[in-house]
């Protein structure tokens, strides 16, 4: 069983939901990421989404755009992101790591070379924002052959047909983008999310993680009541951005926020 499947199965046994933090690899500096990943696990993270910085993050709001720019200023790349994941795995065998990014750097490396490198780094899932199932056949086959879960996004305007498509093409979990917009956008409408989740559940048995717009413990708790996992990105990266001269402080603020979310989600 894949690490992701095992994680969601274990959580469902105890009636808990996955806490899934997202940070951009190499932000604000390359040496920040690895200890931050371990610290997030200690604070209660079940899965880590590791952002691969890209020069043109079309689906991201300003906070994650700037995270990408800071990481790229330090020459962070797909290759170096994989190196960080490899290091992480040396001391953590449990926590799934999902790469999240855009397709271009993967194409530049070559699909097969990437799949091999991801396997060597013991990556558990790959979420590529701009690679819908229609264009993903080759990449998905290469990943699945290596037991890496291809994770697809669903949006508020995804039809039932598309949900079924993601169910067939994807594995691990489905990422539900809770609002029409970019990462870090305004506030999400809980009733809308609830309604859509019913439609999604009717068409897939994969766990559903919900993200975009989760900023505080209260929202995390509410969302955890609806989905199988809560993804939190921009709110964490805002802590990095607010403390660029003091990364240690950023780290402790991130831990604090994650702990409060964990607590709220479990209570």
């Amino acid at each position, binding site marked *: 069983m894949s690490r992701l499947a095992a994680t969601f199965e274990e959580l469902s046994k105890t009636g808990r939901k996955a806490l899934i933090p997202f940070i951009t690899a190499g932000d604000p500096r390359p040496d920040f990421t690895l200890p931050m990943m371990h610290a997030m696990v200690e604070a209660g993270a079940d899965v880590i989404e590791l952002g691969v910085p*890209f*020069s*043109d*993050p*079309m*689906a*991201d*709001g*300003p906070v994650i*755009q700037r995270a990408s*720019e800071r990481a*790229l200023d330090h*020459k962070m*790349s*797909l*290759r170096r992101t994989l190196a960080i994941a490899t290091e992480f795995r040396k001391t953590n065998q449990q926590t799934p790591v999902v790469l999240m990014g*855009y*397709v*271009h*750097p*993967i*194409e*530049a*490396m070559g699909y097969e070379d990437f799949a091999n490198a991801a396997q060597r780094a013991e990556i558990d899932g790959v979420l590529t*924002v*701009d*690679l*819908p199932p*229609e*264009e993903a056949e080759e990449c998905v086959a290469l990943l699945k052959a290596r037991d890496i879960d291809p994770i*697809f*996004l*669903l*949006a*508020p*305007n*995804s*039809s039932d047909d*598309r949900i079924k498509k993601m169910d067939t093409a994807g594995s691990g979990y489905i990422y539900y*983008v809770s609002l*029409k*917009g*970019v990462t870090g*956008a305004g506030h999400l409408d809980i009733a809308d999310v609830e309604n859509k989740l019913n439609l999604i559940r009717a068409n897939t048995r994969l766990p559903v993680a919900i993200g975009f717009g989760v900023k505080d413990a209260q929202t995390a708790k509410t969302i955890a009541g609806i989905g199988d996992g809560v993804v939190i990105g921009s709110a964490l990266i805002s802590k990095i951005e607010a403390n660029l001269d003091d990364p240690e402080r950023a780290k402790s603020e991130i831990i604090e926020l994650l702990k409060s979310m964990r607590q709220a989600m479990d209570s």
Partner: protein
Amino acid sequence: MTEKYNMPDERGHFGPYGGMFVAETLMLPIQELNAAYQQYLDDPEFIAELDADLKHYVGRPSPLYHAERWSRELGGAQIYLKREDLNHTGAHKINNTIGQALLAKRMGKTRIIAETGAGQHGVATATVAARLGLECVVYMGAVDVARQSLNVYRMKLLGAKVVAVESGSKTLKDALNEALRDWVTNVDNTFYIIGTVAGPHPYPAMVRDFQAIIGREAKQQCLDQAGRLPDALVACVGGGSNAIGLFYPFIDDSSVKMIGVEAAGDGIETGRHSAPLCAGRPGVLHGNRTYLMEDDDGEIIETHSISAGLDYPGVGPEHAWLKDTGRAEYVNITDTEALEGFHALTRMEGIIPALESSHAMAYTMKLAPTMRKDEIIIVCLSGRGDKDMQTMAQREGIEL
């Protein structure tokens, strides 16, 4: 070529290029757009409205002008200029914005967004939005806002809101990113008018079809005026919309050479250029697979060109396909050469070309002398140079 050219496939692929590489939220809107486009493509009422607008509002057909003096001076092929500079708003861009705006209206969208580099597409979009009474927001890289301030002012006069994009390299590609972000956020009421043959399917095919009027007219005009088809077509390539507009109706005429001219900036060897077809690699950006300018890690790199409208690291996927199949040839022209083209046309024919179009002029100056006097080149004069007066004056140390 015996089989008729029939690209793209129904999911927008030109061989390995093109496609629909978008975030999930945009999948529905581009499918809706495609459905609407396919419907109206064959709708006599839509076509009639489009044709009437092109005639009475844009001023089509644009002339095909035999540049006799310049041809004589260069001593080779006869040069004919397809005068897109004479269109309303001064460039070919409006052929496309008229078409897309009519689609937007039919689809019930009330808000128009666009990206722009040189500002020509922004102006052409603001123009049609004003005419149809639609809200209009134009995204423009902060660098371009500074170097094309005249067009920024024009857009504002026309009632558009111009947003200076401060992210990334602050040029056209970043404006496109920001427009996509806007679209994701406002999909329900917003129509995104892309200004070139880039973006996800159906944009590359749709924009081509709206621009193909350039080539259809030119073909008929050439037959009427010279009694035969041209031997070569030359057009500058930013995203590639004026070039594909000229080329497309000639694709099955294998005797007609097609040459796209990319911007070599300071020179291909310096790395400071905007010539993905000449010096890039295939990859995925802005919804399609095509040739891109990138570094070894796959990050898109900054481009350089004297002309804001050519300053783009990608190119329409159909050009990538035409390059690989050899049906079209792609060359490049430096900033310095483009300026020579600019001055040559201005002084020889009394026509001041846009800096983008000047790249096509400069290549024509190289090509014409290698051809016989009874051969014909059609060059797309994609726009007029009014918008570049500031840039030119600045380069020559003159304060306006």
